[in-house]
């Protein structure tokens, strides 16, 4: 039953029928607007809210003087400081006051009238200028800060070529079209949040603990989330503010971040400085890899971009050393952004591999084949499944890689220098425990429930496919309810984990439902069942057909339900997804703005549940990678201590004209280890490997080696 299925929520999204967090109405709805700090570090010395309070319609103005007290949140990652609890500012854009008014316009006007005096403190926003870097303590699932395998010095000593180079990537912002928004309602002692989030249970944990509310007094819903890319994964101050003020004032309250505030309110992908040592023999065997990464964290919390993680597993090499350090700066906490860790990290490694290939005079693809890792070179574990060799072969065939001339600058069309480059993509597989419930009604409807999120990836479409596959019914007969902490618990929609994790739980729930139906119909839970409309066919030696309405009437029930769950078990496999990305670029001789002409990408990611939504994910990932390679950069003015150009004109995302033909394919695969349904994660993999493939193509076109992203025309002029 799985296969290519168009998005079931497409019409609702296109027509506007799909309701997002900020689109819910309430008769007593009030509007909150944030006052944020214009300076990166300060003590607030004076507060005057009198003018703001006089604006007609203003209900209240909150600052650290009068805001409700909060407790430290527990149970989920929280990326901010607790809002309005003290007179200290730790980053530009930090909320320092909140206005609540009957109308949004009134709140926004009053924001401009709140007077705060700041005594500025010295603040460093340039992570490269921070002297005291620290060894981070990353979450266990990201691996340790540092790893060492083998004898690095010996590996370098026996090499014929040793590349030492520094690479850098830019600060980037997620920039989903839906800016973050929370609608909070306090009624009869219960707090209900409709939130733009990638994790309703995360929001639930943070809000209930910060507000010291019993878990059953808080409910978080997210029927649709308008893109997240990581910005809505952790919980941030605006969500806590909406919740705390709804409880304080009663009734309904809506807080929507402005686009400018979205640059300072929920993290960013930190810039990175990466130093690579890549040693190889003349025959092209890697003998040593060293990858040292530095990235900023905030002064009040820790986030580390694990850029060297990819180097731990990408190639067979007897000596691999990786380190990560963080430099505290006066910004909001950085956070995962599609694709975290390997996204910036594989840029450095894969350009380094290309450099060594050039140095050795070996085709870049051939060099990768010679160093293909059959087992995880750092852990020594076998991979759960790995189809990278097939990706290389199919990608090269589709692209026509065999015809690539070795010399740079040798492909030319008039004033256009043409270049071909490629790169490997590697991404760790993230998995979270998940539970689900499936209920069959007498009219044949199957309702699957799981508290996960739809952030634009196709969850509403593929979960019914998985349940229908088990029940033998058309997927149209199954609907999914999600985005609600009253539903069975799942992890956040992040780390490309939802299909494999929630999908495994949905499959388990459907199997449990099938067994229960078999039991109720025939007394034997192992009998095979097949559902079609209101007909239930049960095969238990003989074939019996039941009408659901009659069966349920006989049993005296309206519906039959069953639950299922799945959790990642510890096992002895290294779990990663893989891909091969091939790029063609054109660079004008006189006006060298690099433009991508085509991308070919082939992926090894386990079973593909729905080729249409999967292709959509990878296509989006490739577009995302074009942005990383050529456009996206959040510039910080270190004198003012802030990001400049906090809008979608200054922060450049690719537009249609930047996106050429994209050819995406998957290798046939079923991973029996990673999940209960044969799948690994795909969503973020698509944005890995694109930037180095493009950078390597730019080098092939122009002979210029650019080691920092994004590649701009001034790098090539």
């Amino acid at each position, binding site marked *: 039953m799985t296969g290519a299925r168009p998005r079931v929520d497409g019409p609702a999204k296109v027509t506007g029928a799909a309701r997002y967090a900020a689109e819910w109405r309430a008769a007593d709805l009030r509007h909150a607007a944030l006052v944020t700090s214009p300076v990166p570090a300060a003590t607030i010395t004076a507060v005057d809210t009198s003018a703001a309070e006089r604006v007609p319609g203003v209900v209240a103005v909150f600052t650290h003087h009068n805001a409700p007290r909060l407790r430290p949140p527990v149970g989920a990652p929280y990326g901010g400081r607790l809002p309005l609890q003290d007179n200290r500012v730790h980053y530009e854009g930090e909320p320092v006051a909140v206005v609540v008014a009957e109308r949004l316009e009134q709140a926004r006007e009053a924001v401009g009238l709140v007077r705060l005096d700041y005594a500025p403190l010295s603040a460093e926003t340039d992570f490269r200028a921070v002297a005291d870097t620290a060894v981070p303590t990353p979450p266990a699932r990201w691996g340790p800060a540092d790893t060492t395998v083998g004898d690095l010095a010996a590996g370098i000593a026996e090499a014929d070529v040793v590349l030492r180079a520094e690479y850098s990537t830019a600060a980037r912002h997620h920039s989903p079209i839906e800016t973050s928004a929370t609608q909070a309602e306090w009624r009869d002692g219960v707090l209900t949040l409709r939130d733009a989030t990638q994790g309703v249970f995360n929001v639930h944990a943070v809000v209930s603990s910060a507000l010291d509310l019993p878990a059953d007094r808080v409910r978080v819903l997210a029927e649709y989330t308008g893109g997240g890319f990581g910005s809505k994964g952790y919980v941030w101050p605006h969500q806590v503010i909406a919740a705390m003020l709804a409880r304080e004032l009663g009734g309904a309250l809506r807080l929507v971040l402005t686009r400018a505030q979205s640059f300072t309110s929920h993290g960013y992908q930190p810039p990175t400085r990466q130093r690579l040592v890549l040693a190889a023999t003349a025959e092209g065997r890697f003998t040593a890899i060293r990858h040292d990464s530095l990235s900023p964290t905030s002064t009040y919390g820790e986030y580390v971009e694990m850029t060297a993680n990819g180097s731990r597993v990408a190639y067979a090499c007897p000596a691999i050393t990786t380190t990560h350090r963080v430099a505290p700066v006066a910004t909001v906490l950085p956070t995962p952004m599609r694709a975290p860790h390997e996204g910036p990290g594989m840029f450095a490694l894969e350009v380094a591999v290309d450099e060594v290939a050039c140095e050795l005079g070996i085709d870049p693809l051939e060099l990768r084949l010679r160093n293909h890792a059959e087992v995880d070179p750092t852990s020594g574990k076998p991979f759960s499944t790995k189809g990278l060799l097939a990706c290389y072969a199919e990608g090269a065939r589709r692209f026509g890689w065999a015809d690539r001339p070795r010399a740079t600058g040798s492909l030319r069309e008039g004033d256009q220098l043409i270049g071909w480059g490629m790169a490997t993509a590697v991404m760790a597989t993230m998995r979270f425990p998940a539970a689900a419930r499936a209920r069959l009604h007498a009219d044949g409807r199957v309702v699957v429930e799981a508290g996960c999120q739809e952030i634009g990836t196709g969850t509403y479409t593929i979960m019914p496919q998985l349940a229908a596959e088990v029940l033998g019914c058309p997927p149209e007969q199954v609907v999914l309810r999600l985005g609600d902490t009253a539903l069975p618990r799942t992890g956040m929609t992040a780390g490309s984990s939802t299909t494999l994790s929630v999908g495994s739980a949905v499959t388990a729930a459907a199997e449990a439902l099938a067994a229960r139906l078999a039991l109720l119909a025939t007394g034997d839970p192992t009998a095979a069942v097949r559902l079609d409309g209101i007909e239930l066919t049960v095969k238990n030696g003989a074939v019996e057909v039941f009408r659901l309405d009659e069966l349920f009437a006989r049993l005296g029930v309206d519906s039959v339900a069953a639950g299922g769950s799945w959790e990642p078990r510890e096992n002895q496999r290294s779990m990663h997804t893989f891909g091969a990305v091939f790029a063609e670029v054109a660079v004008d001789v006189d006006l060298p703005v690099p433009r991508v002409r085509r991308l070919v990408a082939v992926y090894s990611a386990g079973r593909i549940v729905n080729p249409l939504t999967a292709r959509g994910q990878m296509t989006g990932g490739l577009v995302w990678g074009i942005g990383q390679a050529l456009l996206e950069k959040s510039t910080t003015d270190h004198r003012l201590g802030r990001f*400049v150009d906090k809008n979608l004109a200054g922060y450049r995302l*690719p537009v249609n*004209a930047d996106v050429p033909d994209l050819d995406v394919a998957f290798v046939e695969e079923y991973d029996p280890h990673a999940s209960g349904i044969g799948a690994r994660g795909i969503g973020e993999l698509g944005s890995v490997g694109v930037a180095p493939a493009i950078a390597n193509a730019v080098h092939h076109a122009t002979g210029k080696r650019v080691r920092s992203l994004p590649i701009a025309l001034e790098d090539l002029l």
Partner: protein
Amino acid sequence: MKPFAYRRATDARSAVATVAADPDAAFLAGGTNLVDHLKLGVACPSLLVDVSDLAADLVEHLPDGGLRIGAGTRNSDLAAHPVVRAHYPLLSEALLSGASGQLRNAATTAGNLLQRTRCGYFRDATAPCNKREPGSGCPAVAGHNRHHAILGASPDCVATHPSDLAAAMVALDATAVVLGPDGERRVPIGGLYRLPGDDPTRDTVLAHGELITAVELPAPFGGRARYRKVRDRASFAFALVSVAAAVRMHDGVVEDLRLVFGGLAHRPWRAAHAEDALRGSAPTEVALRAAADAELLDARTLSGNGFKVPLARNTLVSVLRELTDGAAEPEDDA
């Protein structure tokens, strides 16, 4: 955002009288720039006088062979106008290289010409900016200045003018018809814009309350014309450098030409030195490069925009090479 009054003007004279009498009033047309500024707190007028109903969207032939374009003509309509496409293709090309289809459907001719700089500091109401708040300083001089001016800037302001249309209008020798409280006057577009000097708050020579009612183009220049825009993104981005060029050749020699840079200065930059260097000359590669260098001799770069000098040179040379089409090569002349 602060509350404001809104009035729909029914005739130009009373609209001008209303705005001229109130220093906090502003004209509103397409709103694609001003409404952004209202939301951002960059502009805080107390009164908006909407001039959309003044029926100023006619495109008419003039007796001298020129064209009169109503100030309210939408960018999309102007770009698609058959006369413009046939006789002033430079305008169409410039308009279509800017913004997006949705914005061009809303933005007007005069509004496009009077749009304000996209300098990130100007648009951030909490940052210092001499253009927005005189005397507060210019953080771009020592800050993020990749998009900023290399010609005609001052220590007080290094902003660039963002309009593609304006560069083309200067190249076409267009004239703005301006209605003020004391009557009508005509301002050549080439003289409409100011350099920042010590008063960057004023982008143009227009007084508060003056309203552009039309733009007039002289009879077509003839020859060949081209608008070339260089930008990071392939669409929907402001120019790093643009060139509006029109060239008339005769016997392998440049008879006359108009060259205007966009993206380099506080105003569209008429490249008069380059024009002088080429007028009457054969457009050899050496001559083209020398002309570009002559224009860029006075360029002053900042920490992040040094690339604009070679980029401007290359863009100008590339456009002129295309427009003169190898006419100076002896083998082509034979």
